[in-house]
């Protein structure tokens, strides 16, 4: 059974149709990279998968359970399965790093303060950070924020990790360090991962399969090799980053 199955998902904001019938299946343990232009609705798709947004029509199954019809209380419980790294990390800026990382643990588990402290340290070490527990988010660099955001997302051992533009805004070295982390987490935690990005380095490095979102639909799904050899001119234009071609929207 697929871990996540998206069936004919539609979503509009006012007049603007962002998702026009998205279909996608993600298998347990795989890393699915969803590529597409900025503003193509990748983030919107991600937010539907974790239930922050509700679709106009269509269904999403997580482990066979339909989630779009769940109440917000039921969705809160289900959120334990998900960990999400947000584009700007979205750390709570009134809380220390340790409190940020502990946030999901406090809500999803009944651990003692002592155990929470240990888990926080372990999660931070997993993303390569030490001794930052008492800092506030504004004292961190962009790359460190992303790491803390990732530590927060994995602290309560979710089954699915979603990455929203994990390398955007980082220098190439830090970006590659994040790529390595994505691979490492997949290996260590056996999680299913969904990465949305327009960074082709990240895509080729971490992807088991790649899906391209274009004009509100998934136009192509396949292994990196299959995508590279795609006959679709839209896919070819995007993966090679050409300014001219069938994609002409600005």
């Amino acid at each position, binding site marked *: 059974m697929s871990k996540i199955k998206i069936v004919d998902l539609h979503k509009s904001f006012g007049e603007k149709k962002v998702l026009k019938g998205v279909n996608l299946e993600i298998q347990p343990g795989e890393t699915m990279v969803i590529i597409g232009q900025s503003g193509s609705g990748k983030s919107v798709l991600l937010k539907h998968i974790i*239930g922050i947004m509700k679709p106009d029509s269509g269904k999403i199954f997580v482990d066979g359970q339909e989630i779009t019809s769940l109440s917000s209380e039921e969705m809160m419980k289900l959120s334990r399965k998900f960990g999400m790294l947000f584009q700007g990390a979205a750390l709570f800026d009134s809380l220390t790093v340790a409190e940020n990382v502990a946030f999901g643990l406090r809500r999803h588990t009944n651990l003692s303060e002592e155990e929470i402290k240990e888990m926080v340290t372990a999660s931070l070490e997993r993303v390569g950070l030490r001794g930052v527990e008492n800092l506030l988010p504004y004292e961190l660099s962009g790359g460190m924020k992303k790491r803390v955001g990732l530590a927060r997302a994995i602290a309560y051992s979710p089954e699915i990790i979603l990455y929203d533009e994990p390398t955007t805004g980082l220098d190439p070295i830090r970006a590659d360090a994040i790529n390595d982390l994505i691979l490492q987490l997949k290996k260590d935690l056996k999680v299913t991962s969904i990465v949305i990005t327009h960074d082709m380095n990240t895509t080729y490095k971490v992807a088991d399969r790649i899906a391209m979102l274009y004009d509100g639909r998934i136009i192509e799904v396949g292994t990196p090799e299959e995508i590279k050899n795609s006959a679709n001119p839209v896919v070819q234009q995007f993966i090679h980053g050409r300014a001219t071609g069938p994609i002409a929207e600005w």
Partner: protein
Amino acid sequence: MEKQIWIPFLNNFFYELGQVFELTVQAVKGIFQKPFEKRIFLQQLEEVGVNSLPVVSLTAAFGGLVFGLQTYLAFHRYIGPGSESQGGPIIAVGLCRELIPILVGLMVAGRVGSAMAAEIGTMKITEQIDALLSLGASPIKYLVVPRVLASLIMVPCLTLYGDVIGIFGGFTYNVYLMHVNQTLYVQNTLKYFEIWDVSVGLIKAVVFGLVIAIVGCWQGMTTEGGAEGVGRATTKSVVVASISILILNFFLSKILPATLK
């Protein structure tokens, strides 16, 4: 032509009214549901209450002084010299029922309601609200409920405090500055002034507290469009809360009985 201007305006008005109503229902329900965010609630009690004390002290003191001044003048001019001590109960009743609740409401809307809109609005545009949801926390329970509850408790407390300062301001002007007979002034005040007058002000303050927190949180939660959006939300929260307070104040004055005796 006129129709075309009014329809979208009314449409938007009722849409926003619906949003506010829904948020209010969720927030009030949330007060009675676990888990209760004690730490944030205490922070907000301090922010809304303790940190508003300097502003409330100043506005209440000068409000009381100027109200004392005008009341003194009115009696002096229209009733005649010697009648000024009759101003005591008028000052006390006027302050407790109208001036202090309004001043406190407007001040708290300006310094706390706006901060709520700005803080929650910033969290919205930096995806911190989405992050709350992704971590299994309800933004209503985590952000709105503590602020609403703190406001409901602290705005009446500030009003009661302002009443004392204001009445003392009116007394100071009349008795110490204008040398009105102190005994008569106090006797008149005690004769006509009722606990109910204070209660009316406190009932209003509860309503104003709810309005300030709900409007601030509502504007924050619906913020869109980056830094500019946060600015808009902040401004709008102050404008909407202040106008609502003034309009509601009139109707509350009209509805609440003049005396219980």
